[in-house]
């Protein structure tokens, strides 16, 4: 398979995730869509790593997975804190930081 197939697939997954981030209101689903974005980036990194025959891109992908795990842990912590403090689980309601 040509590398371009993987790149286009990665672009498609990225745009699906972007639509989810922009239009869903449940913060849990927004986090899941962010995972889609990061995974699309990972797929592109691994595909380009295969294209050059150089494993550096795979190391980058591993670091992206670490960052994604951290993001999940903190994001889910925020959601649980919202739930405990009886804040509605809806990103549109979270507007206290608006200037």
């Amino acid at each position: 398979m040509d590398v371009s197939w993987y790149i286009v697939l990665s672009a498609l997954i990225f745009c699906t995730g972007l639509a989810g981030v922009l239009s869903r209101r449940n913060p849990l689903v927004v986090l899941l869509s962010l995972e889609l974005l990061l995974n699309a980036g990972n797929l592109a990194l691994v595909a380009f790593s295969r294209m050059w025959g150089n494993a550096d891109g795979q190391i980058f992908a591993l670091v992206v997975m670490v960052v994604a795990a951290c993001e999940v842990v903190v994001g889910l912590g925020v959601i649980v804190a919202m739930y405990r403090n009886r804040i509605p689980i809806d990103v549109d309601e979270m507007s206290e930081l608006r200037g």
Partner: protein
Amino acid sequence: MDVLEGICFFIAALLAVGGAAGVVLLRNPFFSVLALVLHLLALATLFLLLHAQFLAAAQIIVYAGAVMVLYLFVAAYVGGGDEPFMPSGPLLTLAPFFAAALFAELAIAALGSGLSAINSEGAKIDPGFGGPAQFGELLLKRFLIPFETASYLLLIAAVGAVVLARRRRGLEHLDEEAGI
């Protein structure tokens, strides 16, 4: 062999796109998480096709295993705010169109680029490409500092999650207990 690889690619790509669409479109967050698990498994197959064996294993064990269990736990704990893919407000209706436009642009950028290697299978690779041995060598030699930074990042995130999800409101009670 080449035909088999193509068949594997298209099945995995279909499952990956279907899983991604499921994450965005399904009403119940619980099913969204399950769709993401399907997506991650399909992506691991694609990694295998790209000769990234170690990454595929890490993807299944760390991502589809550990991280998704965390998601499922929180989805079950917080419960379903059943909410469809129905954008509210005039600006949000533009979101799918914006995403489609971005996809068109990215596809044009990728396929119209001057990279001649993008229309090939990729460079010649060693048999050990993407294996644990190569990964370990790169992580401990060339990428030692990113590796150590990643470990600190994980530690900070773990401490942050514990602080965020405490039963008490904040750290004030801790100060009172310590008599400060």
